């Protein structure tokens, strides 16, 4: 019995501790970059519209935190809505294509071709469709961006099942629904989360870029663009930082959900992603 691999202990405190050790080098690099940035801007007297000082950006961030926060929430809601719509549609379509492979053969070429379309270019058009101020006009862009990565990964997860697994279910006289429920979908779960993590970042990008083509004044993309027009570059940069923070937080939330839903995976918390 000595050949048994002991289970990875899942103590949360220990995980945090190890995470901190893992992240320490990255943290050091982050601080060094900020210091170098500040130093370069000061020494070479770089103009603010090219690159503001980190301290100026932090100042703008502090002075406008409540406006930026509420703008971030407006944009994040659009991103979240688009993420939900795009991912749900992607998973449903992947389920259909995994069940009826022939349909998949007919549709796949178009799905791949559609992925090559620069979706962002449609932003002005969705603004026309739904109206500038309607959050749906941004959600649709985010949804379309989210669709492909979730779709491709889900389909791969649903179809990359050991043939013997399917034979086993057949030997139990299990039907298609049971086979999906107990084999294909659990098997696809880690793949789905890979897609969702990519999609979470794309959703935020889609929403912000959609807002660049017009949107409510209290949305992050509009705030960034207006402040560039007003030459308030530190505030524009602060807006970009808020957008990034929401994107990172969204990604992290999906990663936490992944940790809890696919915790059965071998060494799930030692992967570096």
């Amino acid at each position, binding site marked *: 019995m000595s050949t048994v691999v002991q289970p990875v202990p899942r103590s949360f405190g220990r995980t945090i501790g190890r995470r901190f050790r893992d992240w320490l080098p990255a943290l050091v690099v982050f601080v060094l970059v900020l210091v170098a940035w500040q130093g370069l801007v000061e020494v070479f007297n770089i103009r603010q519209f090219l690159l503001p000082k980190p301290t100026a950006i932090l100042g703008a961030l502090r002075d406008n935190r409540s406006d930026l926060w509420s703008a971030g929430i407006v944009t994040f809601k659009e991103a979240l809505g688009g993420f939900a719509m795009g991912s749900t549609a992607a998973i449903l379509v992947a389920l259909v294509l995994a069940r009826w492979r022939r349909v998949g053969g007919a549709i796949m070429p178009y799905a791949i071709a559609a992925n090559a379309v620069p979706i962002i270019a449609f932003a002005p058009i969705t603004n026309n469709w739904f109206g500038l101020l309607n959050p749906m006009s941004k959600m649709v862009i985010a949804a379309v961006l989210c669709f492909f990565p979730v779709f491709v990964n889900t389909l791969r997860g649903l179809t990359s099942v050991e043939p013997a697994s399917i034979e086993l279910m057949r030997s139990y006289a299990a039907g298609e629904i049971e086979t999906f429920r107990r*084999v294909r979908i659990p098997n696809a779960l880690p793949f789905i989360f890979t897609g969702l993590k990519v999609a979470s970042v794309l959703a935020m990008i889609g929403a912000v870029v959609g807002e660049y083509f017009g949107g409510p004044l209290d949305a992050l993309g509009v705030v960034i663009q207006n402040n560039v027009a007003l030459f308030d570059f530190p505030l524009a940069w602060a807006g970009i930082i808020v957008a990034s923070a929401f994107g990172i937080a969204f990604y992290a939330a999906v990663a936490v959900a992944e940790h809890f839903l696919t915790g059965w995976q071998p060494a799930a918390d030692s992967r570096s992603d």
Partner: protein
Amino acid sequence: MSAPPAAVSLAGVGKTFGKGAVRALEDIDLAIAPGEFVSLIGPSGCGKSTLLRIVGDLIQPSVGDVIVNGKPAHRARLDHDYGIVFQSAVLYDWRTVTKNISLPLELLGWSRGRRNERVREMVELVELSGFESHHPWQLSGGMQQRVSIARALSFDPALLLMDEPFGALDEMTRERLNMELLRIWERSGSTIVFVTHSIPEAVFLSTRVVVMSPRPGRIAGIVEVDLPQPRGAETREQPRFFELVTEVRERLAGSGAATAPTEPALVTEERV
């Protein structure tokens, strides 16, 4: 041999793949009595795994009849008459040992209480107590295969089909699991059809060894294994064990040549 109602009865079974291009199996006639332990042995490509899958209704024969427990194989599969163990354990990583074993019970709609009780029995039977909440990837290959056997036996299938279950294991683990399998077979009383590459394994486990020849796969001969039951480590040291190993080996060697099956008469005798 007397003729009790057969657990498995194959009559004129043949299988061709690719519109007749590849003849995988031809003229297979075989009857297996309830409680028998029958091994199918032969070189790679002799169609023994295909034959096992035909018995299990996972592949349809091109010709011939497959009757299991007095009904067509398809009906038998729908009635959950089969427990199957593959060369790889085919366990689900997202399920613990307990949940893997209870999978077929869930599909059969057993209540939670009944499932738990049965899983406890099975875990004891395959000696995995203490590992109930482990995930498959935390177990050694031998332990994984024991989970797979427990799962196959959990719902008391009339017929246990095993496709080289110990083929990927080291020799020592294989011999230990051979002993365990015999003990389980004696206790459960199920009928076992066992595909293997290993001559000593076939002789040690079986009541009969079916020797198959390749291209197309046919039954080249059947060796009755008259070693006394119950068998143990000392069985492998008996002169009779070596005689039987030699007999199977000679049949295999004789069947390797591209000639007709050596003893078709022996095969037809086995029909019920």
